[in-house]
């Protein structure tokens, strides 16, 4: 089913309510292989496509949920702006061709890139929406202004909800100026613990990093690389790079790398091409200082993981079983999402980290608030 407008979408959802059937919302389908396999009827949201309102000086963009991410990126680039949470096309994790990801799918999956460390995630840039609840009711939430603080902040709840609450048809997003200049500065040979320490020190300084990540030796084919990105206006970037370069981490220093090398590092943290392809892939979110602890406890080899967000995000593609990963992540105050796995694994292991009973009960009450009959409860999550 591919509704062309809100009325058709509402009819589809009302019909599903009447027949007690389930619906699975889908944008470009890049993340089809996340979550348990399910047979619910697909609702293709790509009919809701196009830019609805964009005034660069207001820092606000309103688009249809089915608008391709690439189209939005090109439009913003023309006006020297960006989505600061660095959304990316996750299709590459599943062997899909680039260009299929939609803005709706990306925000509803709550996917943010390396810059999330300092700029906030999709939820922090999601100001307003139009959509249809699981109960079939058309609604709006938030607003089309940067300071959208009136009423409950439902856009935050919808971001990262993976289609479990409402079919969002229109999104208003905060946009920000694209930095005029960007430099990446790299230290080689640091251990994960040393890397965390260096990144934490720099984040607490006036270096004003945009992103900070660590690639272990087994993924770079040589020595480990700890990379930080400094961006903004050229004179400022130069001054802040000097702060980074002045840092001494047990005799090792950060030095600038060229634009191509920089591009390659940050791209690798999205495509994850340095990790084993095809096998199980975990996305583990932790307090930053616990990133190195998690890796040590896991006993992960240095070709099986990447560390982003200054230690707060681990991508892990190794053989350790789900229970161990979740136990270790939970024990350190974090959680683990199964991003990729074969059907058998996904049937047995839920994509999301199990919640404590009281939180789980609250979450299901909130789901019922949007979707009383469970139309969007496909069993996928």
């Amino acid at each position, binding site marked *: 089913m591919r509704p062309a407008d809100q009325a058709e979408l509402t009819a589809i959802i009302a019909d599903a309510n009447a027949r007690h059937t389930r619906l699975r919302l889908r944008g470009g389908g890049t993340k089809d292989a996340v979550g348990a396999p399910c047979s619910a009827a697909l609702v293709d949201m790509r009919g809701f496509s196009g830019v609805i309102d964009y005034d660069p000086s207001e820092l606000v963009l309103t688009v249809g949920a089915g608008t391709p991410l690439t189209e939005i990126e090109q439009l913003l680039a023309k006006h020297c702006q960006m989505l600061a949470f660095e959304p990316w096309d996750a299709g590459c994790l599943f062997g899909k061709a680039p260009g299929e990801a939609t803005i709706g799918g990306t925000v509803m999956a709550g996917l943010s890139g390396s810059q999330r460390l300092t700029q*906030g995630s999709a939820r922090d840039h999601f100001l307003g929406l139009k959509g249809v609840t699981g109960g079939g009711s058309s609604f709006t939430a938030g607003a089309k202004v*940067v300071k959208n603080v009136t009423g409950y902040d439902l856009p935050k709840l919808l971001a990262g909800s993976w289609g479990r609450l409402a079919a969002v048809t229109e999104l208003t997003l905060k946009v920000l100026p694209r930095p005029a200049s960007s430099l990446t500065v790299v230290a080689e040979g640091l251990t994960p613990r040393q890397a965390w320490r260096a990144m934490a020190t720099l984040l607490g300084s006036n270096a004003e990093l945009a992103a900070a990540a660590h690639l272990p030796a087994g993924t770079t084919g040589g020595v480990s690389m700890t990379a930080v990105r400094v961006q903004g*206006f050229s*004179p400022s970037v130069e001054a802040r790079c000097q702060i980074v370069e002045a840092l001494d981490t047990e005799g090792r220093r950060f030095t600038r790398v060229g634009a191509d090398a920089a591009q390659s590092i940050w791209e690798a943290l999205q495509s994850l091409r340095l990790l084993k392809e095809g096998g199980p892939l975990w996305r583990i979110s932790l307090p930053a200082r616990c990133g190195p602890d998690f890796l040590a406890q896991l006993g992960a080899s240095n070709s099986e993981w990447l560390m982003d967000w200054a230690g707060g995000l681990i991508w892990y593609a190794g053989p350790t079983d789900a229970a161990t990963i979740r136990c270790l992540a939970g024990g350190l105050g974090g959680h683990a999402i199964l991003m990729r796995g074969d059907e058998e694994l996904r049937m047995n292991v839920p994509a*999301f980290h199990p*919640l404590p009973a009281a939180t789980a009960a609250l979450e299901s009450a909130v789901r019922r608030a949007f979707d009383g009959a469970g139309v969007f409860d496909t069993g996928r999550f």
Partner: protein
Amino acid sequence: MTICMPEVDADVLARREQIVVALRRIVPGEGVISEPTGLRPYESDGLTAYRQMPLVVVLPETVEQVSQILAWCHAEKIRVVPRGSGTSLSGGALPLADAVLLGLGKFNHILDIDYDDRVAVVQPGVTNLAISKAVEHAGLYYAPDPSSQIACSIGGNVAENSGGVHCLKYGLTTNNVLGVELVLMDGQVVRLGGRSLDGPGLDLLGVVVGSEGLVGVVTEVTVRLLARPETARALLIGFDSVEGAGACVAAVIAAGIIPAGMEMMDRPAIHAAEVFVGAGYPLDVEALLIVELDGVEAECDFLIGEVERIASTHGALQVRISRDEEERNRFWAGRKAAFPAVSRLAPDYYCMDGTIPRRQLPFVLERIGEMSREYGLGVANVFHAGDGNLHPLILYDANRPGELDRAEAFGNDILRLCVSVGGVLTGEHGVGIEKRDLMPEMFGPADLEVQEQVKRAFDPQLLLNPGKVFPTLHRCAEAGRMHVHGGQLPFADIPRF
């Protein structure tokens, strides 16, 4: 002034003694206040036009006590109003005659600071400024800076999603809180978020921040800390028209600059402020901009030059650049004194709070000017120009018959105007009881229904902070605003800007 609050449950009033005894069993000693003299300080918050003595005040000291209080009230179907420092300007902590007022003032400890990961875990009664003070020595601070920051609590900031002068660049409370511990109305304790950047499951934290005390009682807050910028400098720029100033603001942003703060004042506000504090503002301009840049020195130097260049090509009549901290503070002094300064223009003023798309500013100010003439009441405007948050200050005299009503009607028209140009009813003061009945101006029935269903998911019996945020079925009064009589600001020791 009256406003419709939920019907008082006479049965609960009759059981008052029993309720006091039950609460004393949970919180022994002086933690339960039931004498009228003890209750009096809690009868209102920063919106002092509305007063109501609470049924009883309870001041728990532990999460266990909060949990027991809520569980007992839940079982007995007794309403609860949570309160932080009581600085809300929208009546968010206004007591109800039949509700237990749950004060969190004793939750005033900073529990943990992780300097490496730049995270602080604090109790909700800790003031906003106290967090920054506690980490100042390490070069860190907590970014959101509502103007009441010396008094307002972080728990209250979470409830209201507070902003501040610097929120365009650094975000609101919601962008700077990583986690909370929340006690639900049935007494269950849940943790939402934590010290990691992303939480598991649905982003319930996102809806708790800004929920105005209607979904649970926050007993612990984890906030993100930032490195304090090395320098800050400001420009003072005068224009011969509001349009000119507005165009300059748009051009600054179009040039890719997000200033730490960008404030605008109109002619009446400039004159009032200058008379009041002698900040050295030019008096021959129609609009004044204060633009503050922060960061490393090289960044400030560069951006000061850029903003100066943009201003001069956008018809600035004059541009002054702060040479030192003292001058920067002087530029701000007039702006920060704008509220008390305006209170000298008339016996009373009425502080409004709405947000508009910035491009609508000239039209909105022109319409406010026309309405000012129609209502026969003066108005001065101060404006967080970066994020479109407008504070019109309506001048009136409560001692003149009918003027208060006219001021309130004028205020409501301004908020309707904000919504009609694509803006919202609030900027940073919350909805509370103040704007509750205007919510349908912005949200349709289906929109409000979704929000109310979310509220019910947390509190099915609607026992937490009832009568706030959501419009009641019967509108029996127009909403009130922050009224100031004879220059007597509510909580006059707290700066408001």
